[in-house]
């Protein structure tokens, strides 16, 4: 089983992201592996443990995206590739998907391409389906469990309305939810391997494609208008009295 898992370096979820001069800014907050991608790495490693094969972690980004890749290596991925090129700027999900599809082709022989369900910075969750579309592979999104038999894969999808069982032929693209369990900690052996790993960098020339053209651009980012919040405590002698006062207020404010 040849598995690719795509990982992205994003601002820490504890970071306060604001718009500054039309750009996203998160101050001194550290960059971390996208938490959803950590679940994807976990799921990929579980598939490898069940069926054998290899797990390759891949990221598009600048040099510091190697941190996310090293985290995946420390968790147990076999190898990692960084895709970086000065021509790659302001890409939308469609352009990223074109790039990812080219990467999958270049790696060759891939059975499964894993994604986290979304990246916590852009939060679009579109890339997996778009990549599948370009590859012409089935998109098995929001996968909560994966069962492989021969070249057939059965996936239980988990979404707000319920669960759905779908099956498809490999190769396929997957986006994953948390049901595979908490991502494992890196092992010390993994940490040693990761810290010593030389991660190869592929450029557009290596992929043999030109920089994909974005169709959506973000001319500027603005902060949401700040809202005045007032806090009022409703007191009363009994629960009944408090509830009545609250109900009157809600009606007066036309909330109810």
């Amino acid at each position, binding site marked *: 089983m040849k598995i690719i898992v795509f990982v992205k370096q994003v601002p820490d979820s504890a970071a306060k992201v604001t718009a500054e001069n039309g750009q996203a800014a998160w101050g001194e907050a550290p960059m971390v592996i996208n938490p959803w991608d950590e679940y994807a790495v976990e799921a990929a490693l579980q598939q490898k443990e069940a069926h054998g094969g290899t797990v390759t972690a891949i990221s598009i980004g600048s040099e510091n995206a190697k941190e996310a890749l*090293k*985290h995946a290596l*420390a968790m147990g991925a076999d190898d990692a590739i960084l895709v970086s090129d000065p021509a790659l700027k302001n890409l939308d999900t469609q352009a990223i998907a074109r790039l990812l599809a080219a990467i999958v082709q270049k790696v060759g022989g891939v059975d499964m391409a894993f994604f986290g369900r979304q990246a916590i910075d852009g939060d679009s969750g579109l890339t997996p389906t778009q990549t599948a579309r370009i590859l012409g592979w089935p998109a098995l999104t929001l996968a909560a469990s994966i069962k492989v038999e021969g070249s057939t894969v059965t996936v239980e999808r988990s979404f707000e309305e319920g669960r759905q069982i779908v099956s498809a032929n490999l190769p396929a693209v997957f986006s994953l939810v948390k049901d595979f369990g*908490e991502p494992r*900690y*890196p*092992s*010390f*052996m993994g*940490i*040693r391997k*990761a*810290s*010593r790993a030389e991660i190869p960098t592929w450029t557009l020339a290596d992929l043999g494609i030109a920089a994909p053209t974005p169709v959506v651009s973000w001319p500027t980012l603005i902060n949401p208008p700040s809202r005045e919040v007032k806090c009022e405590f409703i007191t009363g002698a009994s629960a009944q009295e408090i509830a009545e006062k609250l109900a009157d207020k809600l009606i007066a404010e036309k909330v109810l």
Partner: protein
Amino acid sequence: MDFSLSQEHQMVQKMVRDFAQKEIAPVIKEHDRKQEPIPWAIKRMGELGILGICFPVRYGGQGMDYISLGLACEELEAVDTTLRVVMSVHTGLCGMTLLQWGTEEQKQKFLVPIARGEKIGAGAFTEPGMGSDVAAMQTTARREGDVYILNGEKMWISLASKADYALVTVKTDPQAARPSQALTSFIVDLHSPGVKTGDLHGKLGVRAGSTGWISFTDVRVPVENRIGEEGEGFKITMSAFDNGRYTVGAGATGLIRASLEASIRYAQERKTFGKPIAEYQLIQQKIARMAQNYEIARLLYLQVGWMKNQGLRSTLQTSYSKKFATEASFEAAHDAIQIHGAYGFSDEYDVERYLRNARGAIIYEGSSEIQTIIQAGYALGQRSDRPLRCELPAYDPDTWQE
């Protein structure tokens, strides 16, 4: 000179931090209140390799360096002291002494399962009648053919009731010319006939940890379990302390950090007289002191870790680290409580636990008074390091992986 942590070190730090924060932090308060250890904590630390972090792979360890050991201790004690105590006695006192003084057979037989966390180790020196004055111990061993017969009692022993093995130092030669030549060390299987163990209750701190007693009644310990030669027990015990104290100094650094972080959070939220208390200089002074002491404590233990990696003796530097960090951690917790006002006095917040946990380390692994005596001895030229028959091996990134 290079003060930066390697990427490997940073990843170790993050891994141990994630474990302690995710798995221990949510449940520690409840166990501390009940005065009961978290039953799965030691096993989990073993599974994750933390217990064997700094031992060569061929001895069952994870092949990391001594700095990684210190970093792990800092992260563990930033959540709870009891986790770091496990590192001090299992990894420091017991495992590292085997690495330093054990024969190849002893390393294979005892260090491998200890490094893997399959067996738990302790270090037993203190007795009901002595602690600081190691040479005054009363537990005895007398040789009969291929075994030694041990009799006596050890007290205040961390993990006494949890450990499988203990490094035990006893008196073998009451007639020795110098008291320090009277002692011999053994690795004792605590499941042997004649060994009894129990826990002590009512401790001020480390309440989620196990501290107890071990009694020996005609316990037969094979000669193969003797560590070093007869009469080398004092030196071996002092080497054990060099390693144990390092983990205590590194851990106390984490406790300073925990008090500092809690204080910053609280001081920015709590308002008096219309302003967050973080804006008052008297509060800032306390926070600045914690921040400064954290930095000093950190540099002191990292220096020791570096010296250990180089294979240099660090008895004096370890003493500086241990004494400074443990005293500063108590002071930091005390200030943190003050910043928290009445809430700091309650176990709703963590800082009162930090204070109780910080207190013991000023006594154990060589009290502050004993550290002062050591430091003065070096300063006045009354004390110097003589080469040991067995030194702690320097860290070698290549052979450590074999």
